[in-house]
């Protein structure tokens, strides 16, 4: 009997161990204080500033293992990084504006003009990609929010007109404008560009109400909420689109229609799920086969951006109010994970190039500028949630 009982216990123990390695792995949400959050966000912004060339571009990618910079650049990501600096400024860190303005100056030097609009083009390939102009415009709207300075208003309207040119009748956005034909390329949509354009246009409506920027915004929002995942054959809908989350949050008091709220709820659940899964990832040869690789900061940051956006929406629209505590908890968890994986100034001393290690996130020895962009945005936006919690008695 003792042998049988022992064997039974052994089988149970093996089963428990297997569970522990797989679905029941511990969830790590590193504690984060407002001070630590601010320090972490500031360090990522400082990385971007240190990594900026005199002409306004940024170090696109840095390989710490070889201490080298691959010869590559991405205009959309340039606009996104610049936007994140303006976003930090809009959230109170005005010291980021000079670097962001330098990034904007590089973009202004690479505009293409057509009819009554302008768009940002890739100076190397000549390609005109919607996302670059959308994020440039989103950055300028954040700048205006931060400063109230109307200096770029005309440029913003020219960029916004380009965005509208790229819209299809169903509300979706085309990804490329073809300089050869002088028309949008009708064959390519983008899972990123549509949400980016919506966020930029929705912010245009905030700054210039009555100019009609809400009309194309509604059409994009309807497309995202009702049709995008199916039309673009995106698996496991909703696709976790943080740009859509930003947009819905921006449109919160328009107010949103019921199908937008349903979409927002689904997005919130998806971002929350992704953070929960990430919280079980610790890397290493035991954890990784069961839970996957640690997500790079560019991905994890977008989930925190999405959660913080949904948190703001939940605070504005009572139809989502029930989600507010969970959204806050997940956003803080995501920000804590981000901060815990960042290279600190102290740690950077051991790296080949401490200046390009401090404040950055690396995976496989490589950091890319959008790692810092999305992490900066996510961290800076989470500060509002922590501040709110600090204020709550």
């Amino acid at each position, binding site marked *: 009997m003792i042998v049988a009982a022992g064997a039974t216990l052994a089988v149970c123990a093996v089963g428990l161990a297997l569970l522990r390695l797989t679905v029941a792995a511990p969830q790590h949400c590193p504690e984060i204080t407002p001070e630590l959050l601010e320090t972490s966000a500031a360090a990522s912004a400082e990385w971007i500033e240190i990594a900026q060339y005199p002409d306004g571009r940024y170090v696109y990618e840095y390989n710490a293992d070889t201490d080298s910079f691959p010869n590559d650049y991405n205009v959309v990501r340039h606009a996104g990084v610049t936007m994140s600096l303006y976003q930090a400024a809009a959230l109170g860190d005005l010291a980021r504006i000079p670097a962001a303005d330098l990034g904007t100056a590089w973009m202004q030097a690479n505009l293409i003009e057509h009819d009554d609009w302008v768009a940002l083009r890739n100076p190397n390939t000549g390609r005109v990609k919607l996302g670059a102009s959308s994020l440039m415009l989103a950055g300028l709207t954040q700048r205006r929010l931060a400063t109230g300075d109307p200096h770029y208003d005309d440029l913003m309207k020219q960029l916004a007109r380009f965005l509208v040119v790229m819209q299809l009748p169903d509300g979706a956005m085309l990804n490329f404008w073809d300089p050869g034909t002088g028309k949008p390329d009708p064959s390519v949509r983008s899972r990123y560009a549509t949400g980016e354009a919506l966020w930029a246009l929705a912010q245009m409506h905030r700054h210039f109400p009555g100019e009609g920027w809400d009309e194309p915004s509604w059409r994009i929002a309807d497309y995202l909420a009702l049709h995008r995942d199916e039309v673009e054959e995106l698996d496991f809908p909703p696709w976790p689109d943080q740009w859509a989350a930003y947009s819905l949050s921006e449109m919160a008091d328009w107010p949103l229609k019921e199908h937008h709220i349903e979409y927002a709820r689904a997005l919130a659940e998806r971002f929350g799920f992704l953070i*929960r899964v990430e919280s079980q990832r610790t890397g290493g040869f035991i954890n990784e086969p069961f839970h996957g690789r640690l997500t790079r900061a560019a991905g994890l940051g977008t989930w925190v951006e999405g959660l913080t956006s949904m948190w703001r929406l939940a605070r504005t629209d009572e139809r989502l109010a029930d989600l507010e505590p969970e959204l806050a908890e997940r956003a803080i968890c995501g920000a804590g994970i981000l901060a815990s994986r960042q290279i600190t100034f102290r740690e950077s001393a051991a790296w080949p190039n401490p200046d390009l290690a401090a404040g950055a996130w690396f995976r496989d020895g490589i950091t890319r500028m959008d790692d810092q962009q999305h992490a900066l945005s996510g961290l800076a936006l989470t500060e509002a949630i922590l501040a709110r919690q600090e204020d709550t008695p």
Partner: protein
Amino acid sequence: MSGLWITILLIFASINPPAVLATVNRAEKGRLQLVPAAVAFLAGAALLLAATFAADAFLDALQLEPETFRISAGIVMAVTGVAFILFGPFSFPMEQDWKSGLFPLAFPLLASPAAFAAVLTRSADKGEPQVVLASLIVVAAVAVGVALVSGRDSPIPGVLARLIGAVLIFRAVGLIIDGIRAV
């Protein structure tokens, strides 16, 4: 169905009374005696109640949220249900005295891994009182029922055990889906 009934159903399907009966029939020559049945009730109930009250501390120690544990519990139950369907009731050696009330009756038949999973997840989700009541009802009913009807050679418990295995899988999949959605 109310929360209490769901908890009772979950613990009932996890213990799978026909499977317990079939195991006893296979091992015992005659009917299960009163003493081992009473020991089984006391020990099985004690184990499940201990798990019920330790649920929060257990999940804290594992650094798990109740929603995530719901998935784990569902997997344990689903595996148990599949085992019932594929292999039928388990076989254990049983001595002809009170010790059989401890093993295998109390553990692993009444306080089975699936039953532990059920009480842990329901306790974490719904609180202890409901799970205490459900555990006592089911464990007492099974101990008394097995003592009353054991000792008859019949294929019916084996068939019912497989059916309840299917019910357990059904409930387990619901728990897993619920857990994934809540995560």
